[in-house]
């Protein structure tokens, strides 16, 4: 262990008027706090989670499309491409399953490259309170897809929309057990206020964020 480490920890303990590490009994209490994390106050939502999500995501300028089944995703992506004059080759997250892609689209499944115009990924969860989507990194969902392309399309199932961020953490613990390398919470497109505090979209990340909410 480094000298600086011992020096800093000793200084912290001196300042807290303790001679050494916390007594075992206190450590156990703190261990329990970490091992079974409890939510603090969660603000009340005045709406059902799905409507709230849609409302909040719209407020931060995410584009929202609502469809009944995964079969409709390809059509929404095609329309997005036409509307914004993008090419018909897309990069999809390798793990995005169940989407029947139109044969007009050239679909590649990989991490993103600088030249990619549009990516389509799945979301682990949607957070109603803020209209954010949560995406987890992994072989099936490379993080670069969320940031490098000009346009980012996220497929989110209604059943994955939870009221609060805390609910998504509970889901993550239950379903994954451990943290992936990266957890991205994304709330609207990339933006900046660094030139005279004028808010502009498309700073370094995607210029447009399009969330397709699937009912099934």
């Amino acid at each position, binding site marked *: 262990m*480094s000298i*600086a*480490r011992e*020096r*800093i*920890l000793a*200084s*912290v*303990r001196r*300042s*807290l008027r303790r001679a050494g*590490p*916390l007594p075992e009994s206190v450590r156990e209490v*703190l261990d329990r706090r*970490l091992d079974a*994390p*409890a939510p*603090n*106050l969660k*603000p*009340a939502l005045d709406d059902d989670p799905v409507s709230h999500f849609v409302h909040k995501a719209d407020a*931060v300028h995410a584009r929202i499309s609502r469809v009944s089944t995964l079969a409709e995703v390809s059509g929404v992506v095609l329309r997005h491409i036409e509307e914004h004059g993008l090419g018909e080759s897309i990069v999809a997250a*390798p793990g995005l399953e169940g989407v029947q892609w139109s044969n007009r689209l050239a679909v590649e499944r*990989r991490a*993103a490259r*600088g030249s990619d115009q549009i990516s389509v990924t799945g979301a682990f969860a949607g957070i109603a*309170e803020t209209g954010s989507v949560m995406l987890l*990194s*992994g*072989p099936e969902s*490379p*993080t*670069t897809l*969320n*940031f490098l392309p000009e346009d980012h399309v996220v497929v989110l199932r209604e059943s994955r929309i939870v009221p609060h*961020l*805390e609910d998504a953490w509970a889901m993550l613990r239950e379903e994954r057990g451990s*943290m992936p*390398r*990266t*957890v*991205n*919470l*994304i*709330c609207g*497109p*990339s*933006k*900046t*206020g*660094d*030139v*005279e*505090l*004028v808010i*502009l979209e498309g*700073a*370094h*990340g*995607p210029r447009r964020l399009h969330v397709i909410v699937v009912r099934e």
Partner: protein
Amino acid sequence: MKSAAHDFPSRARAGLQNPDLVRAMARARTGFIDKRRAAVDALPEYPQLRRIAREIKEHTLQHLDYYLERFEARVREHGGHVHWASTPAEAQAIVLDVCRAAGAKRITKGKSMVGEEIALNEALEAAGFEPIETDLGEYIIQLANEPPSHIIAPAIHKTRDQIADLFHARHAQYGLHERRTEPTALVGEARTVLREKFQTADVGITGANFLVAETGSSVIVTNEGNGDLTNTLPRVHVVTAGIEKVVPTLEDMSTILRVLARNATGQEASAYTTLSSGPRRAGDLDGPGEYHVVLLDNGRSQMLGNEFHEMLRCIRCGACMNHCPVYHAVGGHAYGWVYVGPMGSVLTPLMVGLDEARDLPNACTLNGRCREVCPMEIPLSDMIRKLREREFDERLTPPRTRLGLRAWAFAARRPALYRFVTSLAMRVLGLLGRRRGRLRRLPLAGGWTGTRDLPAPAGETFMAAWAKRRVEKR
């Protein structure tokens, strides 16, 4: 960054006389304050969340050694490295070693106040690396070779014309020759130039808004997406963070996030909140192969438990400076170091020395707005007053001021004498200013009357007027 805090008076004067800065600060005044107010008012639970957020920070600080060790253990489990640095020099050396070991040339950086605190760019450049700030505001001030003037909007002092000039001069090398002034065009230009840098960087360095002990995650909260390109594309990800950034659980972080975004930018949530835990996992198609966290002390462990303890709750939202009349008047550069406004007036003396930064605690009207808006309820104005007391005790206050304070204290503790002297002074000043209703010059107070007139006193003291009124009423 080398401190120029000793130079506050002349820098403040320069700020007051700079018309571009005056315009920029007027924008900041309305922009930040109104948005924050609206966001806070829209959340009925805000007062409780603020109280809980404060309790979380306080709980963590009381057990800081425990939570730091837990955080460290989790990062190691994920295959990451944790380094400890007592001083900025140690932190610099650690980062340089990591960059050398990686055979790095180009280094992208996300915005980090600790990065500024340890003067990382200077150190990296001196060692032959090419550090590139990628947050638009930080990029602008790096091109201008200036320090940040606001902790969340580092280039707030720059006008679009100044940015246009800067880009025009520095972007010709990329084949961009046209001088453009529209904000959209400026943002687009920076995007184009930095894209290539992101993709060719060997190391990415970010700060951290939180370190989560439960999961060993470092967390950044941004809007541009530059931080994510910085921590995902290069081979190595380095995080620089102060030891006070640790929180126990993801739930605790979630609570503080709610107050952070609202106070910083008036948003309910920032565009990107990103948790990084260790290097890329087996099978991952992207992400860095190495992950390092550098934990910086730099005086923080000594603040713990002393009279400035509460400053460690600071989450660097910037609300205090956004509400500070002195900051608005003089601008961030007057403060001469990394941290500006009220939080800077407390932190800078504690980090670079009270002697060096002796003017900062005095650049305050003690109006208390900073404390009122602070999401962590840090008693900034009380701390500023304590620093003034410490200056007096350490004889850092100028001799004339000390003499003046002594004289005042002598009179103030003798009510009869005090009343006699003040009533005499009021009578004399009232007579002198009778004709114009104001005084242009006043002996011993040239500093005050140099830039404004003194309204002439009514001729009697408040105490005298009050006594008379009571007699009349009867």
